[in-house]
Protein backbone atom coordinates (compact mmCIF):
# COMPACT_ATOMS: atom_id res chain seq x y z
CA UNK A 1 0.00 0.00 0.00
CA UNK A 2 2.69 2.43 1.07
CA UNK A 3 4.79 1.82 -2.02
CA UNK A 4 1.74 2.45 -4.22
CA UNK A 5 1.09 5.73 -2.39
CA UNK A 6 4.70 6.73 -2.84
CA UNK A 7 4.57 5.83 -6.51
CA UNK A 8 1.48 7.99 -7.02
CA UNK A 9 3.03 10.88 -5.10
CA UNK A 10 6.13 10.51 -7.23
CA UNK A 11 4.36 10.74 -10.56
CA UNK A 12 1.78 13.28 -9.42
CA UNK A 13 3.83 16.43 -10.18
CA UNK A 14 4.13 15.57 -13.87
CA UNK A 15 0.32 15.79 -14.19
CA UNK A 16 0.05 19.24 -12.67
CA UNK A 17 -0.80 22.34 -14.62
CA UNK A 18 1.82 23.32 -17.14
CA UNK A 19 3.62 20.01 -16.95
CA UNK A 20 4.12 17.58 -19.79
CA UNK A 21 1.38 15.09 -18.85
CA UNK A 22 -1.21 17.61 -17.70
CA UNK A 23 -3.59 16.58 -20.48
CA UNK A 24 -3.93 13.20 -18.74
CA UNK A 25 -4.73 14.78 -15.37
CA UNK A 26 -8.35 13.59 -15.13
CA UNK A 27 -7.32 10.00 -15.83
CA UNK A 28 -4.66 10.18 -13.16
CA UNK A 29 -7.06 11.77 -10.70
CA UNK A 30 -9.65 9.04 -11.31
CA UNK A 31 -7.19 6.26 -10.58
CA UNK A 32 -5.90 8.03 -7.49
CA UNK A 33 -9.47 8.42 -6.17
CA UNK A 34 -10.18 4.80 -6.89
CA UNK A 35 -7.10 3.56 -5.06
CA UNK A 36 -7.09 6.01 -2.15
CA UNK A 37 -9.98 7.99 -0.77
CA UNK A 38 -9.05 11.58 -1.53
CA UNK A 39 -8.64 14.03 1.34
CA UNK A 40 -10.33 16.90 -0.43
CA UNK A 41 -13.97 17.70 0.34
CA UNK A 42 -16.27 20.38 -0.98
CA UNK A 43 -14.99 23.73 0.20
CA UNK A 44 -16.60 27.13 0.66
CA UNK A 45 -20.29 27.92 0.86
CA UNK A 46 -22.51 27.09 3.79
CA UNK A 47 -24.28 23.94 2.64
CA UNK A 48 -25.49 21.30 5.00
CA UNK A 49 -23.27 18.27 4.51
CA UNK A 50 -23.33 14.74 5.74
CA UNK A 51 -21.26 11.66 5.12
CA UNK A 52 -23.27 10.58 2.08
CA UNK A 53 -21.39 11.76 -0.99
CA UNK A 54 -21.56 10.43 -4.51
CA UNK A 55 -18.93 7.77 -3.80
CA UNK A 56 -20.82 6.40 -0.82
CA UNK A 57 -24.16 6.41 -2.63
CA UNK A 58 -22.62 4.43 -5.44
CA UNK A 59 -20.98 1.97 -3.05
CA UNK A 60 -24.28 1.35 -1.24
CA UNK A 61 -26.04 0.89 -4.56
CA UNK A 62 -23.50 -1.74 -5.59
CA UNK A 63 -23.90 -3.53 -2.28
CA UNK A 64 -27.68 -3.48 -2.73
CA UNK A 65 -27.39 -4.90 -6.22
CA UNK A 66 -25.10 -7.74 -5.17
CA UNK A 67 -27.77 -10.24 -3.98
CA UNK A 68 -29.74 -9.88 -7.20
CA UNK A 69 -26.57 -10.09 -9.27
CA UNK A 70 -25.27 -13.21 -7.54
CA UNK A 71 -28.65 -14.88 -7.78
CA UNK A 72 -28.87 -13.82 -11.42
CA UNK A 73 -25.49 -15.39 -12.20
CA UNK A 74 -26.61 -18.63 -10.57
CA UNK A 75 -29.98 -18.54 -12.30
CA UNK A 76 -28.41 -18.15 -15.76
CA UNK A 77 -26.61 -21.44 -15.20
CA UNK A 78 -29.63 -23.03 -13.52
CA UNK A 79 -31.96 -22.23 -16.41
CA UNK A 80 -29.39 -23.46 -18.92
CA UNK A 81 -28.95 -26.86 -17.27
CA UNK A 82 -32.71 -27.07 -16.75
CA UNK A 83 -33.28 -26.62 -20.46
CA UNK A 84 -30.95 -29.49 -21.39
CA UNK A 85 -31.97 -31.51 -18.31
CA UNK A 86 -28.51 -32.04 -16.84
CA UNK A 87 -28.11 -32.62 -13.13
CA UNK A 88 -24.99 -30.74 -12.06
CA UNK A 89 -23.67 -29.42 -8.76
CA UNK A 90 -23.93 -25.85 -7.50
CA UNK A 91 -20.49 -24.76 -8.63
CA UNK A 92 -20.86 -25.84 -12.24
CA UNK A 93 -24.17 -24.01 -12.39
CA UNK A 94 -22.61 -20.90 -10.89
CA UNK A 95 -19.55 -21.29 -13.09
CA UNK A 96 -21.66 -21.43 -16.24
CA UNK A 97 -23.53 -18.29 -15.19
CA UNK A 98 -20.27 -16.57 -14.36
CA UNK A 99 -18.96 -17.42 -17.81
CA UNK A 100 -21.97 -15.67 -19.30
CA UNK A 101 -22.36 -12.66 -17.00
CA UNK A 102 -18.72 -11.77 -16.37
CA UNK A 103 -17.99 -10.93 -20.04
CA UNK A 104 -21.15 -8.79 -20.08
CA UNK A 105 -20.02 -6.92 -16.98
CA UNK A 106 -16.55 -6.49 -18.43
CA UNK A 107 -17.84 -5.15 -21.75
CA UNK A 108 -20.26 -2.78 -20.07
CA UNK A 109 -17.55 -1.39 -17.77
CA UNK A 110 -14.83 -1.14 -20.41
CA UNK A 111 -17.04 0.64 -22.92
CA UNK A 112 -18.86 2.84 -20.42
CA UNK A 113 -15.79 3.87 -18.46
CA UNK A 114 -13.87 4.28 -21.70
CA UNK A 115 -16.42 6.82 -22.87
CA UNK A 116 -16.49 8.53 -19.46
CA UNK A 117 -12.70 8.83 -19.37
CA UNK A 118 -12.55 10.09 -22.94
CA UNK A 119 -15.21 12.73 -22.31
CA UNK A 120 -13.64 13.82 -19.04
CA UNK A 121 -10.32 14.08 -20.83
CA UNK A 122 -11.77 16.20 -23.66
CA UNK A 123 -13.69 18.50 -21.34
CA UNK A 124 -10.94 18.70 -18.75
CA UNK A 125 -13.25 17.45 -15.99
CA UNK A 126 -12.47 14.93 -13.34
CA UNK A 127 -13.93 11.49 -14.01
CA UNK A 128 -16.84 10.93 -11.62
CA UNK A 129 -18.40 7.81 -10.19
CA UNK A 130 -21.61 7.96 -12.19
CA UNK A 131 -20.92 4.93 -14.28
CA UNK A 132 -19.98 2.53 -11.49
CA UNK A 133 -23.60 1.59 -10.87
CA UNK A 134 -24.81 1.85 -14.47
CA UNK A 135 -22.05 -0.58 -15.41
CA UNK A 136 -23.60 -3.28 -13.21
CA UNK A 137 -27.19 -2.33 -13.98
CA UNK A 138 -26.81 -2.62 -17.74
CA UNK A 139 -25.89 -6.33 -17.86
CA UNK A 140 -28.49 -7.08 -15.17
CA UNK A 141 -31.38 -5.93 -17.34
CA UNK A 142 -30.24 -7.69 -20.51
CA UNK A 143 -30.96 -11.26 -21.57
CA UNK A 144 -27.99 -13.56 -20.86
CA UNK A 145 -27.27 -14.46 -24.49
CA UNK A 146 -27.18 -10.93 -25.87
CA UNK A 147 -24.24 -10.62 -28.31
CA UNK A 148 -21.51 -8.61 -26.62
CA UNK A 149 -21.06 -6.15 -29.48
CA UNK A 150 -24.72 -5.15 -29.12
CA UNK A 151 -24.16 -4.63 -25.41
CA UNK A 152 -21.12 -2.49 -26.19
CA UNK A 153 -23.03 -0.40 -28.72
CA UNK A 154 -25.98 0.07 -26.36
CA UNK A 155 -23.69 1.09 -23.50
CA UNK A 156 -21.85 3.59 -25.66
CA UNK A 157 -25.14 5.01 -26.91
CA UNK A 158 -26.56 5.33 -23.42
CA UNK A 159 -23.49 7.03 -22.01
CA UNK A 160 -22.90 9.42 -24.90
CA UNK A 161 -26.42 10.31 -26.05
CA UNK A 162 -28.18 9.62 -22.77
CA UNK A 163 -25.77 11.25 -20.38
CA UNK A 164 -22.75 13.10 -21.69
CA UNK A 165 -24.58 15.32 -24.18
CA UNK A 166 -26.71 16.59 -21.31
CA UNK A 167 -23.63 17.42 -19.28
CA UNK A 168 -22.68 14.19 -17.54
CA UNK A 169 -23.73 12.49 -14.32
CA UNK A 170 -26.53 14.31 -12.55
CA UNK A 171 -27.72 16.16 -15.63
CA UNK A 172 -29.27 13.28 -17.57
CA UNK A 173 -33.00 13.18 -18.29
CA UNK A 174 -33.22 9.42 -18.72
CA UNK A 175 -31.86 6.60 -16.65
CA UNK A 176 -28.76 5.57 -18.66
CA UNK A 177 -29.08 1.85 -17.95
CA UNK A 178 -32.69 1.75 -19.10
CA UNK A 179 -31.74 3.78 -22.14
CA UNK A 180 -29.20 1.10 -23.03
CA UNK A 181 -31.93 -1.50 -22.77
CA UNK A 182 -34.32 0.60 -24.83
CA UNK A 183 -31.61 0.92 -27.48
CA UNK A 184 -31.27 -2.85 -27.76
CA UNK A 185 -35.03 -3.27 -27.57
CA UNK A 186 -35.72 -1.05 -30.56
CA UNK A 187 -32.54 -1.81 -32.50
CA UNK A 188 -32.35 -5.58 -32.22
CA UNK A 189 -35.82 -6.71 -31.12
CA UNK A 190 -35.18 -10.35 -32.01
CA UNK A 191 -32.42 -10.52 -29.38
CA UNK A 192 -34.45 -9.14 -26.49
CA UNK A 193 -37.97 -10.43 -26.98
CA UNK A 194 -39.63 -13.73 -27.71
CA UNK A 195 -39.22 -17.07 -26.00
CA UNK A 196 -35.83 -18.27 -27.21
CA UNK A 197 -33.46 -15.76 -25.69
CA UNK A 198 -34.20 -15.69 -21.96
CA UNK A 199 -32.44 -18.96 -21.30
CA UNK A 200 -28.76 -19.05 -22.14
CA UNK A 201 -27.80 -21.46 -24.90
CA UNK A 202 -31.33 -21.89 -26.22
CA UNK A 203 -31.03 -19.63 -29.25
CA UNK A 204 -30.71 -21.86 -32.29
CA UNK A 205 -29.53 -24.95 -30.41
CA UNK A 206 -31.19 -28.32 -30.90
CA UNK A 207 -30.43 -30.04 -27.62
CA UNK A 208 -33.36 -28.77 -25.61
CA UNK A 209 -35.34 -31.25 -23.59
CA UNK A 210 -38.94 -31.92 -24.69
CA UNK A 211 -41.57 -29.68 -23.21
CA UNK A 212 -39.15 -26.88 -22.24
CA UNK A 213 -40.24 -23.66 -23.91
CA UNK A 214 -38.02 -21.02 -22.35
CA UNK A 215 -40.97 -18.66 -22.10
CA UNK A 216 -40.97 -16.19 -19.23
CA UNK A 217 -44.05 -15.90 -17.01
CA UNK A 218 -44.81 -12.62 -18.77
CA UNK A 219 -44.74 -14.29 -22.18
CA UNK A 220 -47.00 -17.05 -20.86
CA UNK A 221 -49.45 -14.58 -19.40
CA UNK A 222 -49.31 -12.71 -22.67
CA UNK A 223 -50.15 -15.84 -24.60
CA UNK A 224 -53.01 -16.53 -22.24
CA UNK A 225 -51.59 -19.71 -20.64
CA UNK A 226 -53.13 -18.87 -17.28
CA UNK A 227 -53.62 -19.02 -14.35
CA UNK A 228 -50.27 -19.69 -12.67
CA UNK A 229 -50.13 -22.53 -10.18
CA UNK A 230 -49.08 -21.87 -6.59
CA UNK A 231 -45.74 -23.54 -7.36
CA UNK A 232 -45.11 -21.23 -10.27
CA UNK A 233 -45.94 -18.14 -8.23
CA UNK A 234 -43.47 -19.32 -5.61
CA UNK A 235 -40.84 -19.74 -8.33
CA UNK A 236 -41.55 -16.22 -9.52
CA UNK A 237 -40.97 -14.89 -6.02
CA UNK A 238 -37.70 -16.75 -5.46
CA UNK A 239 -36.63 -16.22 -9.06
CA UNK A 240 -36.30 -19.70 -10.60
CA UNK A 241 -37.69 -18.38 -13.87
CA UNK A 242 -36.16 -17.34 -17.19
CA UNK A 243 -35.61 -13.63 -17.67
CA UNK A 244 -33.03 -10.89 -17.83
CA UNK A 245 -29.92 -11.58 -15.75
CA UNK A 246 -30.73 -9.72 -12.55
CA UNK A 247 -34.47 -9.23 -12.61
CA UNK A 248 -35.88 -12.69 -11.85
CA UNK A 249 -35.62 -12.98 -8.08
CA UNK A 250 -38.05 -10.73 -6.25
CA UNK A 251 -36.61 -12.01 -2.95
CA UNK A 252 -33.05 -10.95 -3.76
CA UNK A 253 -34.28 -7.60 -5.02
CA UNK A 254 -36.23 -7.05 -1.77
CA UNK A 255 -33.00 -7.62 0.18
CA UNK A 256 -31.30 -4.92 -1.87
CA UNK A 257 -34.29 -2.61 -1.60
CA UNK A 258 -34.26 -2.98 2.18
CA UNK A 259 -30.61 -1.91 2.26
CA UNK A 260 -31.36 1.09 0.03
CA UNK A 261 -34.26 2.25 2.19
CA UNK A 262 -32.37 1.59 5.42
CA UNK A 263 -29.39 3.70 4.34
CA UNK A 264 -31.62 6.35 2.76
CA UNK A 265 -29.94 5.98 -0.61
CA UNK A 266 -33.04 4.81 -2.40
CA UNK A 267 -36.42 6.39 -1.84
CA UNK A 268 -38.81 4.06 -0.06
CA UNK A 269 -41.66 6.36 -1.10
CA UNK A 270 -41.03 5.65 -4.76
CA UNK A 271 -40.72 1.90 -4.24
CA UNK A 272 -43.96 1.79 -2.26
CA UNK A 273 -45.86 3.96 -4.67
CA UNK A 274 -44.68 1.97 -7.71
CA UNK A 275 -45.88 -1.21 -6.02
CA UNK A 276 -49.16 0.46 -5.03
CA UNK A 277 -49.68 1.76 -8.55
CA UNK A 278 -49.09 -1.66 -10.05
CA UNK A 279 -51.23 -3.42 -7.45
CA UNK A 280 -54.20 -1.08 -7.70
CA UNK A 281 -54.11 -1.13 -11.49
CA UNK A 282 -54.02 -4.92 -11.31
CA UNK A 283 -57.11 -4.78 -9.06
CA UNK A 284 -58.81 -2.47 -11.51
CA UNK A 285 -58.21 -4.97 -14.30
CA UNK A 286 -59.57 -7.70 -12.02
CA UNK A 287 -62.80 -5.73 -11.80
CA UNK A 288 -63.01 -5.47 -15.58
CA UNK A 289 -61.94 -9.08 -16.01
CA UNK A 290 -62.44 -9.20 -19.78
CA UNK A 291 -59.82 -11.92 -20.33
CA UNK A 292 -57.58 -14.32 -18.42
CA UNK A 293 -54.71 -11.84 -18.19
CA UNK A 294 -56.91 -9.17 -16.65
CA UNK A 295 -58.13 -11.50 -13.96
CA UNK A 296 -54.82 -12.79 -12.56
CA UNK A 297 -54.36 -11.82 -8.91
CA UNK A 298 -52.91 -8.31 -8.77
CA UNK A 299 -49.92 -9.26 -6.60
CA UNK A 300 -48.61 -11.53 -9.36
CA UNK A 301 -47.94 -8.47 -11.48
CA UNK A 302 -45.42 -7.36 -8.88
CA UNK A 303 -43.57 -10.67 -9.10
CA UNK A 304 -43.40 -11.02 -12.87
CA UNK A 305 -40.79 -9.61 -15.20
CA UNK A 306 -38.82 -6.52 -14.29
CA UNK A 307 -41.41 -4.92 -12.03
CA UNK A 308 -39.60 -5.41 -8.74
CA UNK A 309 -36.19 -4.64 -10.23
CA UNK A 310 -37.47 -1.49 -11.88
CA UNK A 311 -39.25 -0.33 -8.74
CA UNK A 312 -36.25 -0.88 -6.47
CA UNK A 313 -33.28 0.15 -8.61
CA UNK A 314 -34.49 2.04 -11.67
CA UNK A 315 -37.41 4.21 -10.60
CA UNK A 316 -35.49 5.35 -7.50
CA UNK A 317 -32.57 6.78 -9.49
CA UNK A 318 -32.12 10.10 -7.65
CA UNK A 319 -31.21 11.98 -10.83
CA UNK A 320 -34.16 11.09 -13.02
CA UNK A 321 -36.95 10.73 -10.47
CA UNK A 322 -39.07 13.42 -8.85
CA UNK A 323 -37.43 15.34 -6.02
CA UNK A 324 -40.41 16.53 -4.00
CA UNK A 325 -42.15 14.23 -1.52
CA UNK A 326 -45.59 14.51 -3.06
CA UNK A 327 -44.00 14.33 -6.49
CA UNK A 328 -42.39 11.01 -5.62
CA UNK A 329 -45.75 9.48 -4.76
CA UNK A 330 -47.26 10.64 -8.04
CA UNK A 331 -44.22 9.66 -10.08
CA UNK A 332 -44.00 6.17 -8.60
CA UNK A 333 -47.71 5.50 -8.73
CA UNK A 334 -47.90 6.40 -12.40
CA UNK A 335 -44.92 4.15 -13.21
CA UNK A 336 -46.59 1.16 -11.59
CA UNK A 337 -49.97 1.89 -13.13
CA UNK A 338 -48.53 2.44 -16.58
CA UNK A 339 -46.32 -0.65 -16.49
CA UNK A 340 -49.25 -2.93 -15.69
CA UNK A 341 -51.47 -1.19 -18.22
CA UNK A 342 -48.90 -1.69 -20.98
CA UNK A 343 -48.51 -5.34 -20.02
CA UNK A 344 -52.18 -6.13 -20.10
CA UNK A 345 -53.48 -3.90 -22.87
CA UNK A 346 -50.69 -3.30 -25.37
CA UNK A 347 -50.36 -6.15 -27.87
CA UNK A 348 -46.83 -5.15 -28.93
CA UNK A 349 -44.99 -5.10 -25.60
CA UNK A 350 -45.24 -7.99 -23.13
CA UNK A 351 -43.30 -5.94 -20.53
CA UNK A 352 -44.06 -2.33 -19.76
CA UNK A 353 -41.70 -1.48 -16.92
CA UNK A 354 -38.87 -0.09 -19.04
CA UNK A 355 -41.13 2.13 -21.12
CA UNK A 356 -43.13 3.27 -18.09
CA UNK A 357 -40.02 4.38 -16.20
CA UNK A 358 -38.46 6.12 -19.21
CA UNK A 359 -41.76 7.86 -19.87
CA UNK A 360 -42.10 9.07 -16.31
CA UNK A 361 -38.44 10.18 -16.30
CA UNK A 362 -39.53 12.79 -18.83
CA UNK A 363 -42.42 13.90 -16.65
CA UNK A 364 -40.57 14.01 -13.33
CA UNK A 365 -39.53 17.68 -13.66
CA UNK A 366 -43.07 18.65 -14.64
CA UNK A 367 -44.52 16.86 -11.62
CA UNK A 368 -42.02 18.63 -9.38
CA UNK A 369 -42.86 21.97 -10.94
CA UNK A 370 -46.59 21.48 -10.32
CA UNK A 371 -46.04 20.33 -6.74
CA UNK A 372 -43.86 23.34 -5.96
CA UNK A 373 -46.29 25.79 -7.61
CA UNK A 374 -49.24 24.34 -5.69
CA UNK A 375 -47.28 24.59 -2.48
CA UNK A 376 -46.42 28.22 -3.16
CA UNK A 377 -50.01 29.04 -4.00
CA UNK A 378 -51.30 27.37 -0.84
CA UNK A 379 -48.87 29.22 1.38
CA UNK A 380 -49.56 32.49 -0.40
CA UNK A 381 -53.27 31.99 0.21
CA UNK A 382 -52.62 31.37 3.89
CA UNK A 383 -50.47 34.47 4.13
CA UNK A 384 -53.14 36.61 2.48
CA UNK A 385 -55.78 35.34 4.89
CA UNK A 386 -53.54 36.18 7.81
CA UNK A 387 -53.06 39.70 6.48
CA UNK A 388 -56.80 40.20 6.02
CA UNK A 389 -57.50 39.20 9.60
Amino acid at each position, binding site marked *: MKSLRNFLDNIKPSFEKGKRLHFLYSTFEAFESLLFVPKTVTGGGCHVRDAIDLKRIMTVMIAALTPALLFGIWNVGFQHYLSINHEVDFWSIFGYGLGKVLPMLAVSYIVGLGVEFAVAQIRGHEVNEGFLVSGILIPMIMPPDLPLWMLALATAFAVIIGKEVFGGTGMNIFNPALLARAFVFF*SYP*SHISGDAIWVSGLFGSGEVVDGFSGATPLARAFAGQLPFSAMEVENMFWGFIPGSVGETSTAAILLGAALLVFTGVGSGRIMLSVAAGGYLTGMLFNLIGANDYMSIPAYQHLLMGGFAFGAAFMATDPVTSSQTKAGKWIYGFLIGAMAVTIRVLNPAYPEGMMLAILFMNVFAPLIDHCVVQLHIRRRLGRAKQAVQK
Partner: protein
Amino acid sequence: MEKEPLFSAKNLKLLTDPLARVNPVTALVLGVCSALAVTVKLEPAVVMAISVTAVVAVSNVIMSALRSTIPNRIRIIVQLVVVSLLVILVDQILRAFAYSVSKQLSVFVGLIITNCIVMGRIEAFALGNKPLPAFIDGIGNGLGYGIILVTVSFFRELLGSGTLWGYRIIPSSFYVANGGVYENNGLVILPPMALILLGIIIWIQNYKNGRYS
Protein backbone atom coordinates in the same frame (compact mmCIF):
# COMPACT_ATOMS: atom_id res chain seq x y z
CA MET B 1 -24.15 50.36 -64.37
CA GLU B 2 -21.47 47.76 -64.88
CA LYS B 3 -22.78 44.25 -65.43
CA GLU B 4 -21.99 41.92 -62.57
CA PRO B 5 -20.32 38.62 -63.61
CA LEU B 6 -22.37 35.49 -62.94
CA PHE B 7 -19.91 34.05 -60.46
CA SER B 8 -18.84 37.16 -58.66
CA ALA B 9 -17.59 36.76 -55.12
CA LYS B 10 -20.97 37.89 -53.82
CA ASN B 11 -22.96 35.38 -55.85
CA LEU B 12 -20.55 32.59 -55.03
CA LYS B 13 -21.03 33.38 -51.37
CA LEU B 14 -24.80 33.13 -51.85
CA LEU B 15 -24.25 29.67 -53.24
CA THR B 16 -21.71 28.31 -50.78
CA ASP B 17 -22.79 29.88 -47.50
CA PRO B 18 -25.98 27.82 -47.14
CA LEU B 19 -24.01 24.63 -47.75
CA ALA B 20 -22.32 24.78 -44.39
CA ARG B 21 -22.07 27.98 -42.35
CA VAL B 22 -25.69 29.10 -42.55
CA ASN B 23 -27.12 25.77 -43.61
CA PRO B 24 -30.94 25.97 -43.53
CA VAL B 25 -31.25 22.71 -41.59
CA THR B 26 -28.31 22.76 -39.20
CA ALA B 27 -27.83 26.46 -38.56
CA LEU B 28 -31.38 27.78 -39.01
CA VAL B 29 -33.10 24.50 -38.02
CA LEU B 30 -35.71 24.73 -40.78
CA GLY B 31 -37.28 21.85 -42.70
CA VAL B 32 -36.43 19.36 -39.97
CA CYS B 33 -39.71 17.46 -40.20
CA SER B 34 -39.19 16.31 -43.77
CA ALA B 35 -35.52 15.66 -43.05
CA LEU B 36 -36.65 13.06 -40.54
CA ALA B 37 -39.42 11.61 -42.66
CA VAL B 38 -37.79 10.92 -46.02
CA THR B 39 -34.30 9.86 -44.96
CA VAL B 40 -34.81 6.15 -44.36
CA LYS B 41 -33.32 5.37 -47.78
CA LEU B 42 -30.85 7.29 -49.91
CA GLU B 43 -32.90 7.35 -53.10
CA PRO B 44 -36.01 9.16 -51.84
CA ALA B 45 -33.77 11.55 -49.93
CA VAL B 46 -31.94 12.55 -53.10
CA VAL B 47 -35.19 12.92 -55.04
CA MET B 48 -36.63 15.01 -52.23
CA ALA B 49 -33.50 17.18 -52.18
CA ILE B 50 -33.75 17.83 -55.91
CA SER B 51 -37.47 18.60 -55.66
CA VAL B 52 -36.99 21.08 -52.84
CA THR B 53 -34.06 22.70 -54.65
CA ALA B 54 -36.18 23.15 -57.77
CA VAL B 55 -39.11 24.58 -55.83
CA VAL B 56 -37.00 26.99 -53.78
CA ALA B 57 -35.01 28.22 -56.78
CA VAL B 58 -37.95 28.75 -59.13
CA SER B 59 -40.25 30.24 -56.52
CA ASN B 60 -37.45 32.58 -55.49
CA VAL B 61 -37.10 33.77 -59.10
CA ILE B 62 -40.83 34.25 -59.59
CA MET B 63 -41.34 36.09 -56.32
CA SER B 64 -38.27 38.22 -56.95
CA ALA B 65 -39.62 39.21 -60.36
CA LEU B 66 -43.02 40.05 -58.89
CA ARG B 67 -41.67 41.71 -55.77
CA SER B 68 -42.39 45.33 -56.70
CA THR B 69 -45.90 44.63 -58.00
CA ILE B 70 -47.34 42.70 -55.04
CA PRO B 71 -49.12 44.73 -52.35
CA ASN B 72 -47.36 43.99 -49.10
CA ARG B 73 -50.53 42.98 -47.26
CA ILE B 74 -51.36 40.05 -49.52
CA ARG B 75 -47.85 38.83 -50.25
CA ILE B 76 -48.19 35.62 -48.23
CA ILE B 77 -51.20 34.53 -50.28
CA VAL B 78 -49.36 35.22 -53.52
CA GLN B 79 -46.39 33.26 -52.24
CA LEU B 80 -48.63 30.34 -51.37
CA VAL B 81 -50.16 30.33 -54.84
CA VAL B 82 -46.76 30.36 -56.53
CA VAL B 83 -45.25 27.72 -54.27
CA SER B 84 -48.25 25.40 -54.45
CA LEU B 85 -48.25 25.67 -58.22
CA LEU B 86 -44.62 24.60 -58.31
CA VAL B 87 -45.17 21.82 -55.81
CA ILE B 88 -48.01 20.41 -57.90
CA LEU B 89 -45.76 20.55 -60.95
CA VAL B 90 -42.99 18.67 -59.14
CA ASP B 91 -45.47 16.13 -57.84
CA GLN B 92 -46.87 15.48 -61.31
CA ILE B 93 -43.41 15.15 -62.83
CA LEU B 94 -42.37 12.66 -60.15
CA ARG B 95 -45.52 10.64 -60.71
CA ALA B 96 -44.92 10.57 -64.43
CA PHE B 97 -41.22 9.73 -64.44
CA ALA B 98 -40.35 8.25 -61.05
CA TYR B 99 -43.53 6.59 -59.86
CA SER B 100 -42.02 4.22 -57.29
CA VAL B 101 -40.06 6.99 -55.58
CA SER B 102 -43.09 9.24 -55.59
CA LYS B 103 -45.00 6.44 -53.84
CA GLN B 104 -42.30 6.24 -51.18
CA LEU B 105 -42.31 9.99 -50.66
CA SER B 106 -46.13 9.95 -50.51
CA VAL B 107 -47.42 13.10 -48.84
CA PHE B 108 -44.03 14.64 -48.30
CA VAL B 109 -43.81 16.01 -51.82
CA GLY B 110 -47.10 17.81 -51.28
CA LEU B 111 -45.84 19.00 -47.93
CA ILE B 112 -42.91 20.84 -49.54
CA ILE B 113 -45.30 23.76 -49.50
CA THR B 114 -45.14 23.83 -45.73
CA ASN B 115 -41.36 23.48 -45.72
CA CYS B 116 -40.12 26.53 -43.87
CA ILE B 117 -37.09 26.81 -46.13
CA VAL B 118 -39.24 27.74 -49.14
CA MET B 119 -41.25 30.50 -47.49
CA GLY B 120 -38.25 31.51 -45.43
CA ARG B 121 -36.06 32.18 -48.47
CA ILE B 122 -38.82 34.07 -50.27
CA GLU B 123 -39.49 36.30 -47.28
CA ALA B 124 -35.89 36.76 -46.27
CA PHE B 125 -34.20 37.03 -49.64
CA ALA B 126 -36.28 36.97 -52.82
CA LEU B 127 -38.54 39.88 -51.85
CA GLY B 128 -35.52 42.15 -51.49
CA ASN B 129 -33.24 41.05 -54.31
CA LYS B 130 -33.08 40.71 -58.08
CA PRO B 131 -34.06 37.44 -59.78
CA LEU B 132 -30.54 36.20 -60.49
CA PRO B 133 -29.19 36.42 -56.92
CA ALA B 134 -32.53 35.04 -55.74
CA PHE B 135 -32.10 32.07 -58.07
CA ILE B 136 -28.57 31.40 -56.82
CA ASP B 137 -29.73 31.76 -53.23
CA GLY B 138 -32.51 29.25 -53.88
CA ILE B 139 -30.11 26.74 -55.43
CA GLY B 140 -27.67 27.17 -52.56
CA ASN B 141 -30.31 26.66 -49.88
CA GLY B 142 -31.85 23.72 -51.68
CA LEU B 143 -28.46 22.07 -51.94
CA GLY B 144 -27.69 22.87 -48.31
CA TYR B 145 -30.91 21.10 -47.33
CA GLY B 146 -29.99 18.28 -49.72
CA ILE B 147 -26.55 17.73 -48.21
CA ILE B 148 -28.07 17.17 -44.78
CA LEU B 149 -30.73 14.85 -46.17
CA VAL B 150 -28.16 12.78 -48.03
CA THR B 151 -25.84 12.60 -45.02
CA VAL B 152 -28.59 11.48 -42.66
CA SER B 153 -30.03 8.99 -45.14
CA PHE B 154 -26.57 7.61 -45.93
CA PHE B 155 -26.13 6.51 -42.32
CA ARG B 156 -29.73 5.44 -41.91
CA GLU B 157 -29.76 3.21 -44.98
CA LEU B 158 -26.29 1.79 -44.34
CA LEU B 159 -26.89 0.96 -40.67
CA GLY B 160 -30.59 0.26 -40.88
CA SER B 161 -30.79 -1.83 -44.04
CA GLY B 162 -27.17 -2.64 -44.91
CA THR B 163 -27.66 -1.17 -48.38
CA LEU B 164 -26.93 2.05 -50.25
CA TRP B 165 -29.23 3.17 -53.05
CA GLY B 166 -30.75 -0.29 -52.87
CA TYR B 167 -27.44 -2.09 -53.45
CA ARG B 168 -26.20 -4.41 -50.72
CA ILE B 169 -23.10 -3.05 -49.01
CA ILE B 170 -22.88 -5.29 -45.95
CA PRO B 171 -22.64 -8.86 -47.31
CA SER B 172 -25.62 -11.01 -46.45
CA SER B 173 -23.30 -13.72 -45.07
CA PHE B 174 -22.52 -11.39 -42.12
CA TYR B 175 -26.07 -11.64 -40.78
CA VAL B 176 -27.16 -13.83 -37.90
CA ALA B 177 -29.77 -15.48 -40.10
CA ASN B 178 -26.97 -16.71 -42.39
CA GLY B 179 -24.58 -17.76 -39.66
CA GLY B 180 -22.80 -14.43 -39.11
CA VAL B 181 -22.88 -12.10 -36.13
CA TYR B 182 -24.26 -8.88 -37.60
CA GLU B 183 -27.78 -7.49 -37.36
CA ASN B 184 -29.32 -4.41 -38.89
CA ASN B 185 -30.06 -1.69 -36.38
CA GLY B 186 -33.83 -1.31 -36.19
CA LEU B 187 -33.67 1.92 -34.23
CA VAL B 188 -31.96 3.76 -37.07
CA ILE B 189 -35.03 3.17 -39.25
CA LEU B 190 -37.26 4.82 -36.65
CA PRO B 191 -37.69 8.62 -36.56
CA PRO B 192 -36.08 9.12 -33.10
CA MET B 193 -32.68 8.01 -34.37
CA ALA B 194 -33.01 10.36 -37.36
CA LEU B 195 -33.51 13.18 -34.89
CA ILE B 196 -30.46 12.07 -32.91
CA LEU B 197 -28.34 11.84 -36.08
CA LEU B 198 -29.51 15.29 -37.10
CA GLY B 199 -28.71 16.55 -33.64
CA ILE B 200 -25.18 15.21 -33.95
CA ILE B 201 -24.75 16.94 -37.32
CA ILE B 202 -26.02 20.20 -35.84
CA TRP B 203 -23.58 19.73 -32.97
CA ILE B 204 -20.67 19.38 -35.41
CA GLN B 205 -21.85 22.38 -37.43
CA ASN B 206 -22.17 24.57 -34.34
CA TYR B 207 -18.72 23.46 -33.26
CA LYS B 208 -17.28 24.45 -36.64
CA ASN B 209 -19.16 27.76 -36.52
CA GLY B 210 -17.46 28.48 -33.22
CA ARG B 211 -20.60 28.55 -31.09
CA TYR B 212 -18.82 26.73 -28.25
CA SER B 213 -15.55 28.64 -28.20
